[in-house]
């Protein structure tokens, strides 16, 4: 067990180093000269030389890499060209908004998906199952860039219940969370339904019924405990994605999170910010997945005690 945890953390560390390296190389992999791209064609040669020196691009690659890693270790992510402020500060401002939206959306998704998926599986083939499956299909098919504006149109402009955009109190969280949450809920519902259905076909469910247990005990005690395991993996993947900022939803609602920061930075060719955002998104994904694996290891006795 301990060995498995250590192995998982070690493999995560290796991937983190790989991600850092790729992010470092990002600026060098961009086609053309990054300095020219940032300053535009009409820049004076003296400015170019100055920027090149400021970015350290005039030094050998290996030296730049070591320097980059050393700065990362101190949480020094560089300075934004556009804002003239440390990138770490910018991220720290944006992160709470992203976290808030992520948690709200995921909570909403779980509240919808788990009961709906379980009921659909328990009433397999019935009208409830058909309804749930249809809703899930609809949820997956509707893109967020369409659902978001639609919700704004109905609830903000017509009914005037919620703010149109921005982040200002709980009311402003509702529409982005619903937009993001329904899509997640749709995928999750299908997963929960499929997983519960599969488990209900297992031999040990028949054993439980042969013991004389009622349908609710069989479902809760015997089926769900097993059906959880694959669902957990999906939740981890979804949370990892959310923590990196939901770019489209944040843009639609002008939500001041990491996703919209990234979009702005790309438009402004603000390389240090782009690098930092990509790094953050990858790390969020990685750590949530590592965590999911560890939880999985702990939840499944076959792995825990194997």
């Amino acid at each position, binding site marked *: 067990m301990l*060995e498995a945890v*250590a*192995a998982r953390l*070690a*493999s995560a560390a290796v991937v983190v180093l790989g991600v850092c390296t790729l992010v470092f190389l990002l600026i060098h992999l961009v086609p053309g000269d990054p300095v020219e791209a940032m300053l535009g064609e009409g820049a004076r040669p003296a400015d170019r030389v100055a920027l090149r020196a400021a970015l350290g691009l005039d030094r050998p690659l290996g030296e730049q890499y070591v320097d980059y890693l050393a700065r990362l270790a101190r949480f020094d992510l560089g300075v934004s060209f556009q804002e003239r402020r440390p990138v770490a500060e910018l991220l720290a401002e944006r992160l709470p908004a992203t976290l808030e939206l992520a948690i709200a959306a995921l909570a909403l998704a779980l509240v919808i998906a788990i009961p709906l998926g379980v009921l659909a599986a328990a009433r397999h*083939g019935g009208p409830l199952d058909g309804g749930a499956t249809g809703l899930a299909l609809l949820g997956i098919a509707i893109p967020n860039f369409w659902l978001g504006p639609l919700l704004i149109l109905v609830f903000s402009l017509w009914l005037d219940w919620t703010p149109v955009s921005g982040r200002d109190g709980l009311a402003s969280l509702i529409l982005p969370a619903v937009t993001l949450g329904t899509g997640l809920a749709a995928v999750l519902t299908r997963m929960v339904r499929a997983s519960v259905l599969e488990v209900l076909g*297992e*031999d*040990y469910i*028949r*054993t*439980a*019924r*042969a*013991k*004389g*247990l*009622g349908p609710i*005990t069989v479902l809760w*005690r*015997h089926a769900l*405990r*097993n059906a959880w395991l694959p669902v957990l993996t999906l939740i981890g993947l979804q949370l990892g994605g959310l923590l990196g900022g939901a770019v489209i939803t944040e843009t639609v609602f002008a939500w001041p999170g990491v996703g919209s920061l990234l979009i702005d930075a790309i438009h402004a060719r603000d390389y240090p910010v782009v690098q930092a955002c990509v790094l953050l998104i990858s790390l969020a994904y990685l750590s949530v997945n590592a965590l999911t694996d560890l939880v999985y290891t702990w*939840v*499944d*006795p*076959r792995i825990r*005690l*194997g």
Partner: protein
Amino acid sequence: MAIGVIPEPSPGWPLSGISEPLLEVCDLTVRVVRPEGTAAVVAGLDFRIARGETLALLGESGCGKSMTALALMRLLPPAVVAVTGQVRLAGADLLRLPERAMRRVRGGQVAMIFQEPQTALNPVLTVGAQVAEAVRRHTGRHGARAVRERVVELLGEVGIPAPRERLGDYPHQLSGGMKQRVVIAMALAGRPQLLIADEPTTALDVTIQAEILALIVGLQRRHAMALLLITHDLGIVAETADRLAVMYAGRLVEEAPCAAFFAGPAHPYGRRLLASRPSLDRRAAAPAGIPGRVPPPGASVVGCRFAERCDLAAPACRSAEPAWHPVAAGHRVRCHRWAEADPPPADAAARRPRPAGETEVLLRVDGLVVHFPIRRGLLGREAGRVRAVDGVSLTLHPGRTLALVGESGCGKTTVGRALVRLVAPTAGALWYRGRDLARLGGRELRALRKDLQIVFQDPYGAMNPRLRVGDIVGEGLRTMGLASGRAARCRVAELLEQVGLAAEDARRWPHAFSGGQRQRIGIARALAPEPRLIVCDEPTSALDVSVQAQILGLLARLQRERAIAYLFISHDLSVVAQMADEVAVMYLGRIVERGTVDEVLDRPRHPYTRALLSAVPVVEVAARRPAIRLAGERPSPARPPAGCRFHPRCPEALAVCGRTDPPEVCLGGRHWVSCLRAG
């Protein structure tokens, strides 16, 4: 199809001797609802079980026997299955009980044991919790302590050592036999009057099977339970049941006291089934098998369902379904022609003459070792080794069969795969035509592969479902450059006919074939490059007895015609007795005893061989051997015991056995044994 037939009143019925039926089943019919209409997979069953009695429900796969058990328990999904008829348990009709009352019956008055202990327990709940559920549900005990005490008592009763320490174990930490004991403990929790055991030992090794059967029978006697034992194994029926009911294609065709049935089955199906069964002591004649196949479940048949395969069938059999005919007291049969005598067997001299004396050596295995590393941690360092095969020496002769016998995990399959180089030997030599196969690689090895072929155990998993039969059989011919184009197609057609299929079958897909037919395809594929050795890895263990006999007959005929050597890997000593010239018994990576089939089976010297032989269920009462119980469980091949590997379980072990690895000793003839007590 005639379904829902009212049970005909017949003279001599109800059975004499049954005073008070506990369970009375009348006209039980199970219809499966399919898009194309409903099909009756169980048709008009009627039988009774008295208190404390054991009734065996015997039938081959797909005959509807498991469906019957699930229908009695009302565990079939009502959306897809319609059950009609009456199931009276102590007077109450179970099929008409409200679901809530039925739940008290399930696990209460009627409990059930299932076939596959590996999947019958919930993997994420402890065994203690799973037994406790049944205790709480049916005994009214609710205090944590009282429940726990009862669980410990139950686990102890089913023979789980140190039951208190097992409460917190998860199923994966127990062996298959132990899991089945837990399932039995769960079934006992509600003090059932009727225990339904659906193939309770089919998934277990033969020595474990013997223990579990003894346990079930012991518990049945102690608690005066009635037992409905569902099985395909005539030996198990003979050893445990009072009466049996034979099922064929959804119908009961014969019901009889066991003694009367084994003295002379009335139905031709029963007679053929009994004749198909290989026996430890019937080495002279090859069982005949039953031609054809069972009609698929729910197929509509006019007349007798067995008529297609019956050599007594008359025109009347194909037009009218036979009613029950009384044979004797308590013995009835559903056959128009049960009184007719059997025609003489067509293939009486099917047994090949045993080649006598020494013949040339085809392949000599010398000190074969196959270890699999256990890798752990980030860098995959070797944390240990599974010693699957640990020093095995064998000799194979052309035209003869060497059987390699042992229980699951003994390494017999690995030996077979190493022989055809599907796994690389860790050490040792495989001498074939003056060359060591273990040292060959690349082109040289590929050139010799045509001589060495293998037939796998699972006829379903061993075939690519996306290839046509012709491509499966002909692939070897093409890749080895033995034939191509038209020549290859002709050869495939010829091969299919030789194994009893039609040339046109080459164009069909594997899913269109039954298990037995698929095994024929597998044999045709192995035969294609005209090999000199075929490794047959449990080729019939997934098949029904009647089909098994056909496949064994086919293998024997092919050997006679082509002088192929077989390495016949099996756990079934009865099959080995029929097929083998020589036998090698394997335990935990080593050969413990070897010799001619008569030497090993008639004069077994190693205690393990004797225990294996004593565990085989036998039909003939006179041939039964006193049971030898083995202590404990098979150790892991990753950590074999010191000294003799069998000593921790050996009933005859001496102190010295734990220290000294026994050398192989010749007992005369070709009979060798590795046991210190044999010296």
